[in-house]
């Protein structure tokens, strides 16, 4: 229907010269407008994403010495990172986080979305907002708040434990801190993920349910074999975002570091480590290498997951 389509369909035999010229003039005008529309975004995109990325890559291959200044060292910073137990432990910790926290968070989000969508819960409109509200609380505030809640001084968890005659659990001890941070992240993001899934559930076409209606299939069967497959793209979106978010963990460790420095350490997450390297140890070149590596890890894992998801979708009957 559009001109572009019409042009593609009709191949060589040219219309009269004048018409062709007029049409291509219209095309040119349209193309020019299109480029102008994206230009402001593309300029800033290049300045704020592309150039820093290239610059990080450049920086990561140099080393600064007090005597001798800047010198090219190739991939030495990367080799150093691969042998650096602090970086590797941080990466591993985020791996554990990914395997434990992300499935818990997304399962909760999915179960809540399905429950609210089923129409069997009283007050579901209010509940939907209650579960979502933590997303509007900045990560910094959420961490401050949970930090107080976990704390021994006036935290209600410790108060309840003492009232019941238990010793209050030390939720900020090094053995518990990862779990405590997982709880903060879960609290903050279940609602956001739930809303994405819920929105997708609401827009499943009616026809998909008709067969189940005739079958008399139960709610759980319908959820499992119709609803969940139907909102696959939305679930994939939440998985990818969660992976990106997990590896970028920064706010929670950096704030809790102040109240529990020993449990957190300077390299709790790769991002926190890169920050400390750049701004405390002033080793920006090595920090750039860590940041670059971290970006590569995230992009690779996201790519693999997408690849898998697309493949298994195609192989379905």
């Amino acid at each position: 229907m559009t001109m572009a389509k019409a042009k593609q369909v009709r191949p060589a035999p040219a219309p009269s010269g004048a018409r062709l010229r007029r049409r291509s003039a219209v095309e040119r005008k349209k193309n020019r407008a299109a480029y102008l529309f994206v230009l402001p975004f593309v300029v800033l995109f290049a300045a704020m994403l592309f150039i820093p990325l290239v610059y990080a890559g450049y920086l990561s291959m140099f080393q600064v010495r007090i005597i001798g200044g800047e010198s090219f060292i190739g991939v030495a910073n990367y080799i150093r990172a691969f042998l650096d137990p602090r970086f590797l432990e941080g990466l591993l910790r985020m791996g554990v986080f990914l395997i434990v926290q992300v499935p818990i968070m997304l399962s909760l989000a999915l179960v809540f979305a399905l429950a609210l969508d089923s129409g069997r819960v009283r007050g579901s409109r209010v509940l939907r907002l209650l579960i979502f509200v933590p997303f509007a609380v900045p990560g910094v505030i959420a961490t401050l708040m949970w930090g107080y809640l976990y704390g021994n001084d006036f935290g209600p968890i410790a108060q309840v434990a003492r009232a019941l005659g238990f010793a209050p659990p030390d939720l900020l001890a090094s053995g518990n801190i990862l779990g405590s941070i997982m709880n903060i992240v879960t609290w903050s993001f279940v609602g956001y993920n739930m809303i994405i899934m819920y929105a997708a559930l609401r827009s499943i076409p009616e026809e998909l349910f008709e067969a189940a209606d005739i079958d008399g299939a139960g709610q759980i069967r319908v959820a499992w074999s119709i609803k969940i497959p139907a909102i696959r793209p939305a679930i994939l979106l939440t998985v990818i975002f969660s992976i990106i978010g997990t590896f970028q963990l920064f706010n929670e460790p950096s704030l809790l570091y102040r109240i529990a420095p020993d449990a957190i350490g300077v390299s709790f997450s790769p991002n926190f480590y890169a920050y400390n390297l750049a701004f405390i140890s002033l080793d920006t070149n090595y920090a750039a290498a860590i940041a670059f590596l971290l970006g590569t890890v995230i992009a690779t894992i996201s790519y693999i997951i997408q690849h898998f998801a697309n493949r298994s979708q195609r192989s379905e009957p």
Partner: protein
Amino acid sequence: MTSTQVKSVAANPPHRGGYSSERRRSNLLTALMWLAGAYFVLPIAWLAIASTKDNEDLFTTFGLWFGTKNSLWENLVSVFTVRDGLYLRWLVNTILYAGVSAFGAVLLATMAGYAFAKYNPPGFKLLFSIVIGAIMIPLTALAIPTYLLFSGLGLTNTPLAVILPSLVSPFGVYLMRVYSADAIPDSLIEAARVDGAGEFRIFWQVGLRMLGPGIATVFLFATVSTWNNYFLPLIMLNSSELYPLTVGLAQQQAASAAGGGSQALFSTVITGSLVSIIPLIVAFLVLQRYWQSGLATGGVKG
């Protein structure tokens, strides 16, 4: 009434959704869900209750119930007067950074998303794939090189250092592309062209009008991401008069935890935190109709 009739009545525009020929409420499910709801609300309730206590009550009374007297007003006064009303500056800064960034991000993302949906000149496919690929780049990984580049340009410790990087929202472009493709019929654009309207006028007068919920969604989420950002302002800004709330409150909390100066800071930090989360919660509640439908489009086509 047969079940099909029930369905066609309920299937009006905002999708009835779901499979529920028997719309029975379940007590068990309701109870479980409200229990879950309590988990999400209790911390905020605690924050609100703690804001009514002075330091003594904070340490001596139960956290989830009120103290011996109501000190909310005193706490609010102290939030806004400590260090010559620095908190107010942080609040204004936050609104400024988030507002300007979100406005710019929406404008750029809407123009680009609309163009990606409605035009197809050479190179657009590749360009769009690059933009989508960029969603995977962890922004915090770019913060350190950006800081170094900005400091070379003398931009660090200025509002621009926080605003410029926040203007780029690849996910916003993606969302606006999906939304434009959905909401604006090609025939309408074609008709406007026949009427002799220029491409920019078509976008401004025909396109923008139909993109309302999409724009509201991107605006709200861009506001949230700048409002909540901590890492970027933390590394970019040095002077506390330029801080947004997140960095300022974190600094105050560090001072109170270290016991520096007065103990009164605890209740000041807690009340300041409560005040800082109210604007966004209100914005989400007021605009819920828009962002929920905007997100639906993005999620479905994702």
